[in-house]
């Protein structure tokens, strides 16, 4: 049976992990590759690296990160943040990343989704949608949640699919960082609108939140950062919790 995926997210700035202070087990908690290996060993199904470096001249750093990760990590991983052009995508995939996630650049020029899908395949094109509640729906935001794009999140998800996106990474900005749980209404609205996998993100504080994202939100995968970074829960604990509640998860990986 196809397992629901548990995806830890690593925020990376200037090549270093931003969170993760409690990784006592690691020699260098700031090294994204070492954290990636840690999560892989805990049973993570995939990994997302989100590059939050402000400057645009760090392409080289993120490409190096992809290359180093591909040497040591043997589960799929996605790189997102600041990817602007087809050439950025090519370099990151060539270095060994399995997928890239596009947000601001895709909103600015939606044809990028189709061009990337045609050239590299839909399976490696993830469209990240940061959505914020507004009366009657949700609005898409770009630039790390700073800029309202003036478009409806559900309509944008449909368009992304139609243009060739292979997956949607859906982040509720209202929930992000609050630990109050996914915006289930938003998650359900998007999963009901598209026929491609949706990764729910933003606001996970408890394992129950993961369960609800899958069962009530209809997500094929759940992403979380803080609960794993701060060791509130391990990935293994999350999977055991879900399995006990009847969710198919991959619990043996050795």
């Amino acid at each position: 049976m196809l397992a629901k995926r548990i995806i830890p997210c690593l925020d990376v700035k200037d090549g270093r992990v931003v969170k993760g202070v409690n990784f006592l087990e690691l020699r260098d908690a700031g090294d994204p590759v070492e954290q990636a290996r840690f999560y892989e060993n805990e049973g993570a199904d995939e990994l997302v690296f989100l590059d939050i470096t402000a400057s645009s001249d760090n392409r080289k750093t993120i490409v190096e990160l992809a290359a180093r990760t591909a040497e040591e990590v043997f589960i799929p991983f996605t790189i997102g943040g600041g990817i602007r052009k087809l050439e950025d995508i090519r370099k990151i995939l060539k270095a060994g990343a399995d997928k890239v996630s596009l947000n601001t650049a895709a909103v600015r020029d939606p044809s990028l989704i189709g061009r990337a899908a045609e050239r590299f395949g839909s399976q490696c094109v993830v469209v990240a949608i940061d959505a914020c509640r507004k009366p009657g729906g949700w609005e898409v935001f770009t630039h790390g949640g700073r800029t309202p794009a003036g478009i409806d999140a559900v309509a944008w998800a449909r368009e992304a699919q139609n243009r060739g996106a292979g997956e949607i990474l859906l982040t509720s900005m209202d929930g992000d960082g609050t630990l109050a749980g996914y915006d289930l209404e938003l998650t359900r609205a998007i999963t009901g609108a598209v026929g491609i996998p949706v990764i729910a993100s933003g606001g996970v504080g408890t394992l129950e939140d993961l369960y609800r994202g899958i069962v009530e939100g209809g997500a094929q995968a759940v992403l979380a950062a803080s609960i794993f970074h701060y060791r509130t829960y391990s990935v293994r604990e999350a999977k055991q919790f879900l399995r006990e509640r009847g969710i198919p998860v991959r619990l043996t990986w050795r």
Partner: protein
Amino acid sequence: MGNLRSVEKAIEHLGGRCRILGRPEEAGGCSGIILPGVGAFAEAMNNLRAGGWVEAIREITDAGRPFLGICLGLQLLFSRSEEGRGDTGLDLLPGRVVRLPETAGIIPHMGWNQLRLREPGPLFAGIAEGSYVYFVHSYVAVPADPAVIAAVTDYGGEFVSAVSRGNIHGLQFHPEKSQAVGLKILENFLLIVGDGVGTCRPGRQDDFDPGSDSDFGTDAEPER
């Protein structure tokens, strides 16, 4: 996914040596060949034909050298595919490639799913029944001869997730992205090969293009 770099790195991680082959003539020094690949069937076949790989692969497999197709590489082993406008394949194994039924669920079938082993040969030595491996695909092979089916997986019904006949093997999933289980299968392939694997890579030489074409075959040489 399924890109040459990932396969190469996985084999190197296992202590094997892997060479990415630009032309069929380079396959001479390789004891085994891997044909990875994601993307469209017809485009892949066009690249294989243009590169002279169709005859070369037949010679390699006829000579009994171990051959492993991964993802699209498995599908290319069969007689023909209905993907796009349809095309003939390498025809090393009789059968066709069809789209997963819409009733299966979300297409592509993406993520970790389980193997049910049918005829576990040496490629699956040490692999437990029900092991999870990573899939990304929309099409599946339907072998004319059920005896070649090495493993099946359930996604709205059974589909063929691995095939084996003699020295020819195919995996619908990505062993290079399937953590310990996938690495074990690749290690088994290296053991079958004995002393060297190569990865074929017809098509564009520099523009590595994981999405559409050009990444096939592995010709590597494990150091053992």
